[in-house]
């Protein structure tokens, strides 16, 4: 029903010490689509997307079990190059977190770390990434200014450009608009729509309308389990599970 699968998650479990945060989650994330994850605070959706680029590795008390196949290979295998994995699976966070550097250097940093030294090439990457993130027109005349001087919405698009600069395959977004005003939010949402042509996008959001607007598929998480996954239209018009219904209609949560 969904076309090609980009990431195939099987029986994923995560513990923080004794806290069982993710319980037996199976999910096929379709390629070149936007998948939204919704659910009340603490339901495990952020923990879940952090598994997709092994961000939980850096949390000492976290333990991950299960398989996550990306293009057929389990990313939790010992021989996985985690730096390469995070290049392929980029992430944008809730609060814009640009480096205290120039706009240009924020975007050029990733490709440099991955070995690109040619100045002309770097400039090209900076320009194309900023264009993809719909920020180029606003900053092209002040690339050497500090990124900290940008507005919140611009900073978030800069972070998206920084993520795109290393040519990822998957873009994870954890509440990317919750610190932004409606106009900046609209720009990011338009951008998400464009991004899916080239990337697979997974977005965590508390904003039901945003999930409904931007995503093709929606997964509903509750108490660490994924209770429902399906076509976004179906989830928001006629969810199968009562718990999903109660959550999206605001009867609890």
């Amino acid at each position, binding site marked *: 029903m969904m076309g090609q699968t980009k990431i195939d998650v099987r029986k994923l479990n995560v513990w923080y010490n004794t806290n069982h945060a993710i319980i037996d989650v199976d999910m096929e994330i379709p390629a070149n689509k936007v998948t939204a994850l919704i659910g009340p605070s603490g339901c495990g959706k952020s923990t879940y997307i952090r598994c997709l680029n092994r961000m939980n590795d850096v949390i000492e008390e976290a333990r991950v079990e299960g398989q996550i196949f990306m293009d057929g290979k389990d990313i939790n295998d010992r021989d996985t190059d985690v730096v390469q994995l995070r290049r392929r699976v980029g992430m944008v966070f809730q609060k814009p977190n640009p480096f205290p550097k120039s706009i240009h250097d924020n975007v050029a940093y990733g490709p440099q770390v991955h070995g690109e030294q040619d100045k002309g090439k770097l400039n090209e990457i900076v320009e194309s990434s900023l264009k993809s993130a719909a920020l180029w027109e606003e900053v092209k005349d002040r690339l050497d200014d500090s990124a900290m001087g940008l507005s919140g919405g611009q900073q978030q698009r800069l972070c998206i450009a920084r993520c795109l600069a290393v040519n990822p395959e998957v873009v994870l977004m954890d509440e990317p608009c919750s610190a932004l005003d409606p106009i900046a939010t609209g720009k990011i949402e338009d951008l998400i729509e464009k991004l899916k042509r080239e990337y697979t996008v997974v977005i965590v959001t508390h904003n*039901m*309308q945003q999930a*409904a607007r931007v995503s093709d598929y929606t997964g509903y998480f509750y108490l660490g389990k994924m209770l429902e996954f399906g076509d976004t239209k179906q989830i*928001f*018009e*006629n*969810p199968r599970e009562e718990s*999903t*219904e109660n959550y*999206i*209609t*605001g*009867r609890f949560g």
Partner: protein
Amino acid sequence: MREKFQKQLDQIRQDWYDVALEVLGHCRTAGDSLSEPNKEEIEELMERDSEVLEKTRSIQKRCLELLALQQPMAVDLRQISSYLRSSDDIERINRSSIHIAEVAKARLYDRSIPEFCKILELCGKVVDQLQSAIEAFNFRDVEKAEMVMRRDSEIDGMHAEIFGSLLERVKRDDARASLLMFVSRWMERIGDRSVGLASKAIYIVEGRDVELEAEIGEFKVFPSNDSAREEGQ
């Protein structure tokens, strides 16, 4: 906010049920007037036309407000969109009832022909059908709604028979049969609108949209399935 929303929704539900029952009464009055026209009742029914219109428009306006301000989802969305559309059904049913009452008032038809008795029978069935549909919608009764949908073919069949037989009279220059053709048609339309209400009850409860299936094949002017006669002309 949730409480306020629920209160507004409850009020819409109550107002819808009130106006639906009122229109059910109009439909019954219209049918009864065909054999025994009660001038006062008919006039009252006509006077209330604008009132029904105002009530249904008020429901629609409040539904649109809730859609715009609350962005309802799932069952809330299904309920509100159904109230929005079904209040239109109610308004159209009232309009058809008024037309029938107008014919009854003018009395330009022949009560001695056998088709007239059949029309009275049809009216009785349609009133029952409408009542069941209103109850199914208001009480979210899927079983009753499915019964309404099943019974529609009976009403369609009766209408087809009455219409065909009256058409023969019209062909023989019996002009007084023509108004009864309209009456039969309006009653059948009320039957269709009842099916619309019933299908929305199912949509609210189960999210299944059965209305389209129910309405396919409803667009014929000559409802008779005896096409041979039409070809023979």
